[in-house]
């Protein structure tokens, strides 16, 4: 299958070139990424889809600087990740990247407000008065700052995670199956919130999902198969995504 020519807007938020990654070694080696070239445009909502084992999570992890590729370059918010050590990458992630995970990843011992303020606090600055409250209000959770994560519902926890991801005004928000642990109604609320981030706040969102209904919220869907980019869709709908996906899965 031929790699499609990547769409290249003036300055993509993330640029990935020739990315290769092998998990494990010897007979158990799995080629997770096998030469991936892709750009994630700024001010857009991109979904990454593919069957299980297609390498979509690995792509997200490498693009976000959470994982080291075996070969290839990642340019995140204008910075080349190659050559950065773990601390430098952590600082880059803290200042320029927001994460939303399926398992929320909130710090249970801290209050909701402190969880949201965490990236600021770790960056060595005290949140300005009202800054955290505003971030919580923006995700519809005004007044919950004093509670512990465990006292909130799953949907509310995911919204706390979104507020935390946004509090540093990141260049990219990476979301890994953000609706995986939520029911469909709550999931839709979270997706609407991500959509709104792009439309109203002008943010960039890259989301990995296996759910066509979730992918249909994006501006563009990138399909992965066997560690390679296997096409893409712009202005996706549930139907077009489902059709492309089943075509991929039935392909030899």
């Amino acid at each position, binding site marked *: 299958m031929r790699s499609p020519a990547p769409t290249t807007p003036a300055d993509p938020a993330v640029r990935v070139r020739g990315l290769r990654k092998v998990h494990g070694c010897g007979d158990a080696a799995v080629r997770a990424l096998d030469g991936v070239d892709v750009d994630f445009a700024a001010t857009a909502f991109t979904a990454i889809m593919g069957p299980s084992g297609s390498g979509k*999570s690995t792509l997200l*992890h490498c693009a976000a600087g*959470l*994982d*080291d590729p075996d070969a290839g370059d990642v340019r995140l918010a204008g910075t080349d990740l190659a050559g950065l050590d*773990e*601390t430098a*990458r*952590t*600082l880059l*992630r*803290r*200042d320029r990247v927001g*994460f939303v*995970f*399926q*398992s929320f*990843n*909130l*710090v*249970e*011992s*801290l*209050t909701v407000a*402190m969880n949201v303020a*965490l*990236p*600021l*606090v*770790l*960056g*060595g*600055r*005290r949140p300005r008065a009202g800054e955290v409250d505003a971030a919580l209000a923006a995700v519809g959770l005004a007044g919950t700052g004093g509670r*512990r994560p*465990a006292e909130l519902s799953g949907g509310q926890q995911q919204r706390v995670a979104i507020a*935390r991801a946004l509090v540093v005004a990141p260049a990219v928000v990476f979301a*890994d*199956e953000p609706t*995986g642990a939520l029911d469909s109604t709550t999931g839709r609320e979270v997706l609407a919130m991500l959509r709104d981030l792009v439309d109203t706040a002008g943010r960039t969102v890259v989301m990995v999902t296996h759910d066509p209904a979730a992918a249909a919220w994006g501006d563009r869907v990138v399909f992965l198969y066997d560690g390679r980019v296997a096409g893409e869709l712009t202005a996706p709908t549930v139907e077009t995504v489902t059709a492309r996906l089943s075509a991929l899965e039935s392909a030899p």
Partner: protein
Amino acid sequence: MIGIAARTLAARWAGFTGTALALVLGVALVTTTLLCLFATLDRRDGPPAWFAGADAVVIGTDGPGSVTTAAVPATAVTRLAGAEGVLSAVPDRRAPVEAAGRTWTARPWSTARFQTGGLVAGGAPDSGDEIVLPASAGAAPGSVLRVHTVDGPRVLTVSGVLEGSLPVAYVRDDVVTGWAGARVDAVALRLAPGAPAPAGLGADTRVLTGPDRVDAEPDPDAVRRMLGVTLLGNAAAVATLAATFVVAGTFSYSVAQRRRELALLRMSGAAPRQIRRMVRAEAMLVGLVAACLGTALGRLGAPPVAAWLVDAGFAPPDLTIRTEWAPIAAAGLVGLGTAWLGVTAAARRAGAVRPLEALRDAAVDRRVMGRGRWVGAALLGATAIGVVPLALGETTGVASAYVLLVTIATLLALALLTPVLVPLLLAPVTALTSSGVGLIGSANVRAGLRRTASTAAPVLITVGLAAATLASTATLTATAAAAERDRVTAEIVVSASGPVGLDRELVAGLAGVPGVAAVEPTAGASASVDAGSSGVRQVAVTYASSGIGTAMRLPLVAGALAGLDRPDTAAVSEATARDHGWQVGATAHLRPADGAAVRPTVVAVVADHAMGGSAALLSWPTAGGTAGRTSPDTAYVALAPGADPAAALRAVGALATAHGATAGATGDVLADRTAGDEEIDRLAVLSVIGLTITYTAISIATTFVMSTAARRRELTALRLTGATPLQLTTMIVVEVGLVVLAAVALAGLTTAVVLALTAAVLAGTGPLVLSVPWGPVALACAGCLLIALVAGLAPAADALRRPPLHAPGVR
């Protein structure tokens, strides 16, 4: 449920390892100490040697169960001589002598025929300057020997040599009587064939026959045995107590961690009782394994520990460990009992888990302070407060035991309250923290209360026990030493270096040294006093004469010391006078450990602080008259005004050396004595601290191992949020540092309370000398901090090394 318990153990072995380790160590320590105790108490294996040829031996006793021997009452001696069936009754008197570089017990030649082994050379000591020694002494008949006796150095001729190696030197009967005084130590009996041993001699005698006759021989290792028993008893008690706490802590932690799992079991139909039984069964299985491993380990560890005890002088040299089943079984049962006790609270808590909790999961500990903790803390606090008046009413010796009780009760109460106290203590620190990492660290400390409490409690107990006991012992010793230095006005102190004491010629000779104005011989002894309802009390007494006032300051409350020259007189301390109603003119009832009961008339009452710990000063004639002859162990030498102290000390020193004693300037002698006392205290306290630190390590490490999974999730979330490895390390160090800081603060509070109590106990004994041994205390703090840091950073190491991706909880 037991099946589930076994499977849970198998699956969660990591969490139970700490519990098992604490139990194994506890059981091993108890096994070792009990085996050593058994070996120590098992006085002798051999058959009677001194009285092997006697049909029966009569000795004196302080009463049923007493281990100390006393003189045979004079009435019993008289009655025995004419008793029916008694062919002969030979009184045995004993006096210590030094010859050929060692100490011997001098005994009357008439008792030699009862010992094992007869003459191998020479004959009886027919003359007053002859002596018979065992073959092991290596002296041939006719050889001349310098012998140090209570009368002074003598030159005696060896008249005969006996088979064997008993530490006994025989001399003519009247010579021993001269050295030993009126006291009869034992009466050896020959009975008519078939006649029964005499009975009905009174409660203060024992009639020994068969193998029991060995009890009539003095136990040369009695003091060492007692020290060893005390040390071992302490160690066993601390080990059991600490093991119970570690087990209780780890089990309650494991129950708290498994709330969800337990709730799932409840949801699948397990009744609260079944849950309780399951948690108990887990504890019992751990206890059983620990009991088996621990007793085996303890049996292996006993011989080296016994060797150490012998080396350190805490046990007789012939201490041998045998596999005895009684102590091993007892130690095993202690292990099971400890597990049972430790799991009680945890089982109750587990039974109270509601099925719905399966649906929620909270890493924040909200209800750590259960009712049990409050009630326990209240009871312990009440105990501590209740003991204070008891301690204040006692002499310093007894009071220090109460002070230790207050220390332990206070520490345990505070340890139970750590979930409340630690956040309270850290509130100001948190308020001052501006750096982000510090903020997160202190939030973690307050949110993870269970983990915080599990770390703070053992640190508190270790540091608190070390600081409070060391400081209060050091303060007691230092204050007593200062009081003693302040009390003694004599310039020179002559001390005996062996059981013979200061001989008569030395004491007489000291008075003739140029420049010496007065010589005051004294001897310390212990005595039992009938204290009515509270039973028999052991007190310290000092033999002295009316001239004691020239050697030390003795402020009188009533009466005059002049009466101390008469037989049967005593001066008592104010406290003793109050406790027993022994005012001037009253009759005191005492039984010195080395003699028969005495009833001296009280001639003076002396201020407590001037008595140096003694309850009474008994006049020297009292010692000589009824209690057998006692040699002085210390002589205070006061110099005449204008005398050259250096010249006097040289002359006194030369004389003392010739009589097997030592002399020194008062300040130096008292300082040496204090240093010796402190060394013994320090050894005892350090062994206890060593034990508690071991348990602290186990306890803290177990807590951290068990919380690793939860901890990793938390660290991963922080890493993903942008915390650098350095920030996480800082956060953990801050967290651990804060917990240890809070625990040390609480330990400091306890120490302050204990020192205040010690000061109150010491009030009136002279100027208070507060003394805190900073070195060992700092060592205990540093040890705890190190253990906590290692335990805190170890589970995080993995999360710190790699990118946050691979930790559990992230897909």
